[in-house]
């Protein structure tokens, strides 16, 4: 009988894989224990700044640590979507330092008791990088996209990821809604929630695919889907650094994004690397590291360094931050909660 044979083989290979995995795991553990002459730091970061950490900041930090202490440091790095990374740390992944995309994610780790210092009590309130939501379009901008209103046109297909699965997508939706408020405020002197909601609905109507992450959304766009993509400015700039033609448009009004970094006290203390972890976080705030971020598409949190790069990172006239929309708790409830603005809009669009 072919079928039973196949399934038997499947089970056999699955069990074999399991044993191998356990074996390798065991090896890995042993390996780490043997290395005692060097320090090890575990960094859990979100995916987008991977290149900046890998290629510049971590090597520079290793030099810095060698010069100041005479010791070698190995940084074990993990890059995952911010939400997934947060859940991993909450679930027992023993990261000493977290660098995430959302303030709320660090708050969750703090609320679980893993961070017990005031992580915002650092230079620039605990944030290391900034970005804005930008509109990316096709090479040469063939559909002549200039701002939010153009994204509502019938000949335009828009991409952004699903706010349920992607923190990045929440920023996009926040940007549209907030821009609606700002633009109506500029016109009439009064922020008009009705206009903002309508703008969001008209753009959401043009959305063709909602991928599960911001990265995937850019990949889909590069595969030829859609005329415009909403994403972080740094995500598009990174593609440009890699040599691709990717026109970028910063709308007149958009949202400021700030990305936090923090020492995870419980883990750092358990591993006995508090000093090292603190040094790494401080190092990310130095001019050297801030310039490295800037080279990889992030707006530096350091205002002086930001000025150095002001040609690449222009200030949109109607920039606003999450507090303009009432802060994250409010936004989660009002926009994404049940009966929230975005939730209702998707339901209304389905009925059309």
């Amino acid at each position, binding site marked *: *009988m*072919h*079928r039973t044979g*196949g399934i038997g083989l*499947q089970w056999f290979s699955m069990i074999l894989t399991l044993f191998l995995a356990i074996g390798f795991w065991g090896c890995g553990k042993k390996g780490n224990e043997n290395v005692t002459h060097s320090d090890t730091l575990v960094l859990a970061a979100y995916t987008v700044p991977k290149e900046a950490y890998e290629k510049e900041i971590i090597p520079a930090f290793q030099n810095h640590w060698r010069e100041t202490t005479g010791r070698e440091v190995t940084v074990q790095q993990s890059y995952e979507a911010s*939400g*997934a990374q947060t859940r991993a740390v909450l679930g027992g992944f023993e990261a000493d330092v977290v660098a995430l995309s959302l303030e709320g994610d660090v708050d969750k780790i703090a609320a679980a008791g893993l961070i017990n210092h005031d992580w915002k009590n650092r230079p620039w309130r605990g944030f290391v990088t900034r970005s804005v939501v930008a509109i990316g379009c096709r090479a040469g901008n063939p559909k002549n996209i200039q701002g939010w209103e153009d994204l509502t046109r019938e000949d335009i297909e828009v991409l952004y990821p*699903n*706010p*349920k*699965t*992607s923190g990045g997508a929440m920023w996009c939706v926040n940007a549209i809604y907030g821009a609606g408020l700002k633009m109506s405020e500029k016109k009439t002197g009064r922020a008009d929630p009705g206009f903002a909601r309508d703008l969001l609905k008209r753009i959401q109507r043009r*959305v*063709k*695919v*909602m*991928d*599960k992450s911001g990265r995937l959304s850019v990949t889909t766009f590069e*595969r*030829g*889907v859609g005329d415009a993509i909403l994403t972080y400015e740094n995500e598009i700039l990174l593609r440009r650094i890699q040599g691709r033609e990717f026109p970028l448009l910063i709308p007149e009004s958009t949202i400021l994004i700030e990305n936090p970094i923090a020492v995870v006290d419980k883990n750092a203390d358990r591993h006995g690397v508090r000093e090292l972890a603190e040094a790494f976080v401080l190092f990310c705030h130095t001019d050297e590291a801030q310039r490295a971020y800037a080279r990889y598409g992030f707006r530096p949190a350091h205002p002086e360094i930001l000025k150095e790069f002001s040609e690449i990172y222009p200030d949109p006239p109607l920039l606003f931050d999450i507090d303009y929309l009432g802060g994250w708790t409010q936004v989660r409830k009002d926009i*994404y909660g*049940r009966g929230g603005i975005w*939730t209702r809009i*998707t*339901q209304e*669009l*389905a009925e059309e």
Partner: protein
Amino acid sequence: MSSHAIREPGGAGKRPRWLQHSDLALRGISLGYIGLFVALPIVALTTRACGGGLHRVWEEMTRPEALFSLRLTLMMAAAMMIINVLMGTLTAWVLVRYRFPAQSVVNALIDLPFAIPTVVTGLMLVVLYGPQSSIGTFLSAHGVEVIYAKPGIVLALLFVTSPFVVRAVQPVLMELDRDMEEAAATLGARRWTVFRKVILPSIFPAVLTGAALSFSRALGEFGSVVMVAGNIPMRTQVASVFIYGEVESDNPLGALGVSVILLAGSLIVLIALNLLQRLGRKRDE
């Protein structure tokens, strides 16, 4: 079982004690194994879902997005199942009854979908039918949307589940007694009548097994569908993607509610299949 009868000396005599013990141990191990690796996680999920208060789970289940995603999943799985039953039976028939070059290669190819990571499946479909491919451009020029629309979901489910029906029907066809067919033919029955009256009744339980397995598999499929579906709530978002979204946005209760419905759906299909097969066996006796 016949194998026991052969091993036991004297046929109907009592079996030695150690054999009874080892039988007990075997049964214990296999039941314990299933309990530990299959039943326990399901029980854990269900109790967690109910632990949050049944009315809360009910509220989450009846949200329009949740209901829509469930309905879409069922519809897509059903469409897939119909195609799978027809084409899977046909494929099994061709593989058993005809000889052609590279047959063993085709036979090996059938199992390949089980070995391919489902994300890769999604990627392959996007590469093949996506907007950058010539097929995709041709189709969209003629107003047919495949990727990021419902046909893409059915295609992904078909790819992932295609071995089930073929592999269920094939062995039954191989063991089928051809004398009956020949007798029917000699008595003047046309080919279609032979198929309907002689072959179909024998392979029907196997077709049913394949159909049910593919259906339950399709209910939970995530990796390939998330790549090709478009995932827009209330339009192209299937249940597994909805569940993933709820997990990601810190609403485990919403995820649990829909998961329990999916689980129940699979369970009902599999139990119904069992009953049908038992009925069929009784009729044969």
